């Protein structure tokens, strides 16, 4: 909300399309995605598994491997175009200008290398500093993410840490170079609820203090509600709705967003009943020609068989729907 008017965004993604050319056909994992993140802002990227939210994250880092390829669109980091850059140029940015945190902390740290090795190499990959200086930096960020006695813990192997501690180490590695952007791919789903909330709070504080832009990829609307400033909802490779987190969660415009909110226990509001969205996510190989959600949508009308274009509301929300959910008294100025 507040971030929206703050000058040039840290990251600007427009019309991004990432396809996988498989033997069975073209999988359009990401197809025409646009969004922006500003400094100090948290964007929640929400969707079911297979909706393309992780592929979006990997596309930004330039970590899409064949048969996948970015086929169209642009990704700009502080105005610099990233699409089409060579691997060496991307490697120089990864970990320094933007960093990524992964879902399963049990898998992201190399089990046979000590923590210090894995942190020092991340420093020296980008800066010609001595091992001693790199080590000092590692100690500093480990302290920052709340690891007690970081000097000693550096000599440990990943298996000697708990899941939450490992994720803190991964976050510390992401923070080593004070990147402008951090992409976090469901980093708390594998953790206990209490540790989850601790890490969420810490991340929120770190982002605010350093002015880092944060993209938080998740399927969990509750996490988004507590953490994000804005939210983008993805379905079958497209963003179907985005806007400020409070207004989207309070009064969803897209029927899919409404369905998502309705199916999450505890986030259902205004007496809405807990229910499942009927049917299953479509195969990305054979998407319906129109709105991808049309076959499952209770509000589908004949015109939904044609692809809906992007509509905007006066308060800065955007959605793709021919027959949006009627808005309640909260937003009387909404167009029909």
């Amino acid at each position: 909300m507040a971030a929206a008017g703050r000058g040039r965004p840290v990251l600007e993604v427009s019309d991004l399309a990432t396809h996988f050319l498989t033997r069975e056909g073209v999988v359009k994992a990401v197809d025409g995605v646009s969004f922006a993140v500003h400094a100090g802002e948290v964007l929640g990227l929400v969707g079911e598994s297979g909706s393309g939210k992780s592929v979006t994250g990997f596309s930004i880092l330039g970590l899409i491997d064949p048969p996948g390829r970015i086929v169209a669109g642009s990704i700009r980091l502080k105005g610099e175009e990233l699409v089409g850059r060579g691997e060496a140029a991307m490697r120089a940015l990864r970990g320094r200008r933007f960093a990524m945190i992964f879902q399963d902390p049990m898998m992201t740290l190399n089990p046979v290398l000590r923590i210090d090795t894995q942190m020092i190499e991340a420093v020296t990959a980008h800066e010609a500093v001595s091992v001693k200086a790199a080590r000092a930096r590692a100690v500093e960020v480990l302290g920052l993410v709340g690891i007690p006695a970081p000097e000693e813990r550096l000599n440990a192997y990943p298996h000697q840490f708990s899941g939450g501690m490992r994720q803190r180490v991964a976050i510390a590695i992401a923070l080593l170079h004070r990147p402008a952007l951090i992409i976090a791919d469901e980093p708390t789903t594998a953790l206990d609820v209490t540790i989850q909330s601790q890490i969420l709070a810490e991340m929120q504080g770190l982002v605010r203090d350093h002015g880092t832009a944060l993209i938080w990829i998740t399927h969990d609307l509750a996490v988004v509600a507590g953490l994000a400033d804005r939210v983008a909802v993805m379905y079958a490779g497209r963003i179907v709705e985005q806007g400020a987190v409070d207004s989207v969660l309070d009064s969803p415009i897209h029927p899919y967003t409404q369905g998502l909110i309705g199916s999450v226990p505890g986030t259902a509001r205004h007496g809405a009943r807990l229910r499942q969205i009927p049917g299953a996510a479509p195969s990305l190989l054979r998407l319906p020609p129109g709105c991808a959600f049309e076959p499952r949508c209770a509000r589908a009308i004949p015109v939904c068989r044609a692809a809906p274009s992007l509509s905007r509301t006066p308060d800065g929300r955007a959605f793709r729907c021919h027959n949006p959910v009627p808005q309640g008294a909260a937003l009387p100025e909404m167009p029909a």
Partner: protein
Amino acid sequence: MIAFIIRRVGQALAVILVMTVLVFFGTHVIGDPVWMMVPGDATQEQVEQVRREFGFDQPAHRQFLAFLRDIAQGDFGRSYVHGGPAFALILERMPATLELAFAALLMAVVLGIPLGLYAGLNPEAAPARAIMAGSILGFSLPTFWVGLMLIMLFSVMLGWLPATGRGPTVSVFGIETSMLSLEGWRHLLLPALNLALLKVSLVIRLTRSGAREAALQDYVKFARAKGLSRRRIVGVHILKNILIPIVTVLGLEFGSLVAFSVVTETIFAWPGMGKLLLEAIQRLDRPLIVAYVMVVVMLFVTINLIVDILYSALDPRVRLTGDTA
């Protein structure tokens, strides 16, 4: 850690005991050892005399205990053919065999790991397919025939390398080795290559499947997200993970290299204990066969122990369980 080692040593002793029983059974019960020790035209009296002299008239369990006692003292009897103590004969030939097996292992690693890494990281590339096809050929080739062909090509036709024998040796800390002179290597090259052939294919396949699996792991993607160079990711993150199964398997395969050196040593007239064994088998020199089997079993058991300890040194997760045990 100490408890772990004690337990492993206990297991090793048990294996040696079982093998001793099997060897005793094979040599004393299946065949009558007396007939191997007397001339073909021996009279009944001579046979009985030998039988008493060597204690073969005793009940089986008494013979076994005597056999055990002798072995414990390093006494495997005297070779019928060579005359000297069998155990000493084997030990004398052992360094040559170990040198050959070690050189072969080295070749297998030096050739196999880079090829396997390449094939694993570029599975669709044409050279990778060629490497994999070559590895099928590699483990299909009969060792002895390849040995013949190597001699044919490099010694008879091209005349580059000697076909037989071990080159001059240099003594280092009391161990005779031919690895420190050019002439020594010229002699070592063909037999070592011959022996390495099977293991090269094995190393390629292990490395390839390990690299393919490791490349898909999250820690590799995370390492890329950190901005590490490809060389560091492959050379440290992937290699260190796949080295664990490779070291384990290669350690265990060292035994089979020693066993297969019987073939290679025979072809290349390499003066190791394998060649000695084959001569012993052909001449039915029983004490020598028994001594060889027992020495090799002890060698295997020792190697397995070393591999276990190496394994725990390489994999920090194992080390931890070793500490708590």
